[in-house]
Structure formats: C-alpha cells, structure tokens
C-alpha cells in the first residue's frame, strides 16, 4: 500500500515540542513495518523544506533530503503534463467548494491524489484538522 503523508507528519517528527511528535514516530514506524511505501507531494516537500529552512534547521533538512535520495520517501510525480493539469483542475474545483474553503490547495491536492487513485492503492496520513473533516 502507498501512504501519502503531509507536512504535519514530517514537521511533528522534527519538532520535539509537538503534540504529535511521538505519534509521528509510531505511525511512520508502523507504516514501514507493514511494508507500505511512504509518499509525499512536491507541495508538501516545499512546505517542509521551507519551514525547516526558515527555522534554520539545515541539519534536519539535509537528512530529510538524504532519506528522499535513498528512496525511502517517494515524491509523487504525475505521469504526464496532461495528468498534472487534470489533478490541478480537480484540486481547484474542490478548493472552490464552500465546505472546503479552509483547507489549503496543498491539502486538497493530496485528497485528489488518493480519492481519484492517481496514487494507486493509497491512503492518507495527516494530523491536519482540515483534512480530518
């Protein structure tokens, strides 16, 4: 199975103060133990790298990049520019729905990837309350 994680999981892992810090360790460990693959989107990568850089956490940033390079954290890539556009359009439609207006484009992009199976056999792991509703 493919588990799409969002910024909240990776940030909680790197933030020892975070209310979800221990939970993130357990969740990631469980996902890996089950033999599932861990995925992020480029939007999530952007968010996490930006936050770590803003916080001057370059040691953490470099290590996270190393995990990606080793292939233990996959970055979702659309199969074609056409598919990319389709995903973006569907995300836009969802964003403009009234009930979803508090969720970010990045959040909803992940919802679309899982819901429409652009990432096959997948589910989401998130601590973001916008995504749990």
């Amino acid at each position, binding site marked *: 199975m493919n588990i799409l994680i969002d910024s909240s999981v990776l*940030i909680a892992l*790197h933030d020892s103060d975070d209310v979800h810090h221990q939970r993130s360790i357990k969740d990631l460990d469980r996902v890996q133990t089950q033999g599932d693959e861990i995925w992020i989107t480029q939007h999530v990568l952007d968010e996490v790298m930006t936050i770590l850089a803003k916080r001057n956490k370059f040691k953490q940033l470099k290590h996270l990049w190393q995990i990606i390079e080793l292939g233990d954290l996959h970055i979702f890539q659309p199969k074609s520019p056409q598919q990319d556009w389709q995903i973006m359009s569907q995300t836009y439609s969802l964003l403009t729905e009234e009930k979803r207006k508090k969720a970010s484009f990045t959040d909803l992009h992940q919802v679309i990837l899982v819901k429409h199976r652009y990432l096959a056999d997948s589910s989401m792991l998130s601590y973001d309350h916008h995504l749990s509703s």
Partner: protein
Amino acid sequence: MQDTMIKTQVYLTESQMMALKEVAQKQGKHYAELFRTALADYLKKMKVTRKKKVDWAQVAREYAEPMGGISQKIDEELYQ
C-alpha cells in the same frame, strides 16, 4: 509485472563504453540491455546489504529539536 521503460542519459567513460559494447557483441545483446542487467544486479545487492530502511525513532532522537509545536500551524509558519 514488467516495469515501464523510461529514457535516460548516462555519461560513461570511453573505455567503459567500449568494454560494454564488446561484451554485448559477444553475447549478442544490445549494450543497453547489458547495462540494465548490471544495474539490476547492483540494485539487488544494495537492497540485500541495506539495513532497515529508516529508523524513524532514531531520526527523531538525532534530529528533532524543540520548535514550539508547529504541526497544527503549518500555514502560519509558512506565511507569517
């Protein structure tokens, strides 16, 4: 299930290329096939010799630092 082929470009030294073509000719194969076989062997070996993928608890021990609890405030972190 067979993987989809993707086109890529790799720089080899002249001697590597010559050796690869020579072996490929002897085996009656295309050098690209030989290259893929060699790479597959290498990746298989890497997988066997690699330890547990990521020890997330160790990542947390080594890299987690107090940041004030920001997983629920991602947008504020990014845009303020």
